[in-house]
């Protein structure tokens, strides 16, 4: 249940603005890949183009090729909703559906896929909540609103919602930036467990976090404001943080820039 993502010459635009240019990288199954870099360097744009969420914004488009196990994600005949089911996403701010209970939030994706049987939904909800390390905290109040949980719990609820549909790949867009250190730790632990089953790509501003959780790290950067973001270096996390081959990477890692 994990697939390889391969990006070839991916370029993404917001209207006339070129946000990223010629990104080439391959993400292996069952690994955690961290995307790091200064603000505005296009990490999130690249992440969002992997599950075709980039094109949701008016005027946004993607060029180049993105494949998941050699199937073209951007093929004209591909069903966008199928891509997004295969490649789940967790957002920067916890965004549980405010009108739904905890249970309904977790099974929202399954319901969208037409699952109606209560027993199946309950089983899937428990499994997803257990995987997200949230089950013990919420098992007695599954009927309560999801928005009533703490920020960290909400984010884990969103992770449970994402993995409940059993995607192949999970994208995380700065999942801990709105959370306190303890909740952050809980989610990092979670990522370790999840990579047994999923391919995980995470955007983070926190370099310690990238170093802690990821197997591979991609460093994105821009020349100056208004220029498209580029992939500067992509290597094993160990290598990036101890002995990067690019000067720019080293400057960023050591805090001299960005």
């Amino acid at each position: 249940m994990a697939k390889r993502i391969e990006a070839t010459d991916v370029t993404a635009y917001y209207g006339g603005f070129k946000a990223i240019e010629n990104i080439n990288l391959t993400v292996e199954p069952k690994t955690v890949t961290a995307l790091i870099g200064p603000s505005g360097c296009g990490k999130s744009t690249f992440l969002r183009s992997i599950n075709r969420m980039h094109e949701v914004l008016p005027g946004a488009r993607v060029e180049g090729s993105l494949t998941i196990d050699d199937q073209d994600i951007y093929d004209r005949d591909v069903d966008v909703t199928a891509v997004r089911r295969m490649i789940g996403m967790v957002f920067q701010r916890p965004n549980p559906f405010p009108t739904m209970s905890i249970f309904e939030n977790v099974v929202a994706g399954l319901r969208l896929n037409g699952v109606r049987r209560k027993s199946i939904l309950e089983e899937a909800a428990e499994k997803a909540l257990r995987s997200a390390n949230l089950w013990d905290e919420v098992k007695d109040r599954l009927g309560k609103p999801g928005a009533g949980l703490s920020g960290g719990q909400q984010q884990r609820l969103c992770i449970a919602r994402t993995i409940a549909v059993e995607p192949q790949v999970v994208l995380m867009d700065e999942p801990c930036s709105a959370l306190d250190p303890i909740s952050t730790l809980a989610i990092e632990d979670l990522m370790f467990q999840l990579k047994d089953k999923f391919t995980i790509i995470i955007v983070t501003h926190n370099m310690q976090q990238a170093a802690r959780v990821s197997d591979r790290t991609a460093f994105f950067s821009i020349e100056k404001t208004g220029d498209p973001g580029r992939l500067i270096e992509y290597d094993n996390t160990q290598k990036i943080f101890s002995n990067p081959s690019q000067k720019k990477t080293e400057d960023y890692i050591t805090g001299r820039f960005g």
Partner: protein
Amino acid sequence: MGDTPQRSAHAGTGGTTVATSHGWPAGASARVAEPSGNPGTPGPGGGDALPRAKAFGAERAFRGLTLAAGTFVLVVIAAIAIFLIAKAVPALRANSESFWTFEGWFPNDNPPKFGIGALAFGTVLTALLALLMAVPVALGIALYLSHYAPRRLGNGLGFLVDLLAAVPSVVFGLWGRDYFAQPVADLSAWLNRYFGWIPIFGDGPYGNSILLGSVVLAIMVLPIVTSLSREVFRQTPTANEEAALALGATRWEMVRTAVLPYGRPGVIAAVMLGLGRALGETIALALTLGSTYAISFNVLASGGNTIAANIANRFAEANDTGRGALIASGLVLFAITLIVNITARAIIYRRREFTESAA
């Protein structure tokens, strides 16, 4: 939230003046951050003895002003209620038939005879029929404008819908009576021929019927329900819409999972406002209904009447008792509106746990 740093800044320089900080602009507290080592020129944060709270200032004056405004509403409502009841009671005393069940309106006769039953029935029936027709269309338009139409087209169409709300009701009434009556009569004949087995689609004569009145009314409540719902739908957090899309929802599924549940309380409020307008609508219904005093579920036949339309039709000819009778009917309309509003609040309140966290 915002005043927390301000409070600590004051505390740091010895001034607990937060509670009475009238004397200086709120932003000034930023300057307190300078070291207060120079007691010669105390900043807004103080440094000298604690100043006394002002006995009278803009703060209190404004508070009094808002209190007065709030009280004024209550006084006006009480005054109106007393006036209406005082006028209505003598007429109700003089009524020689049951006010609730008598089907007719002869308050000028001797003895006076009038009953509210048929009017109240007609009021509720036309309003409900109008909502039944208007709400689905209004929600469709609202969703199209907020989530489907290209932005420019959406704004233009939204403006047109708002324009519809600005048309005076007498214009709708005249249009309904003079131009729309014939098509509705044809439609009535058709409905009766093919769906006559449903009791509400009874025999004619077709003309100024409840159907005509409620169709005109539906067009009138359409804009208010549409523009309020559109605003509510627009406020759906992007984060929730993206969450639904990222789970693999199609556009319509996204609307169903994120937009509609989020907008539910607002839509209920919009429908209730539309219902309020429908219940109270006067002149358009006075022109398009048949002004009869019988309770009938046949929406096609000429007839129908509402409390407000009856007041408009009968006020000119009314004597003292007649006016009192009309005022009594107005009180009943008020009660109906009140019940509707309380019901709506109850519906919203029942789900407060979810709607509050949504806000």
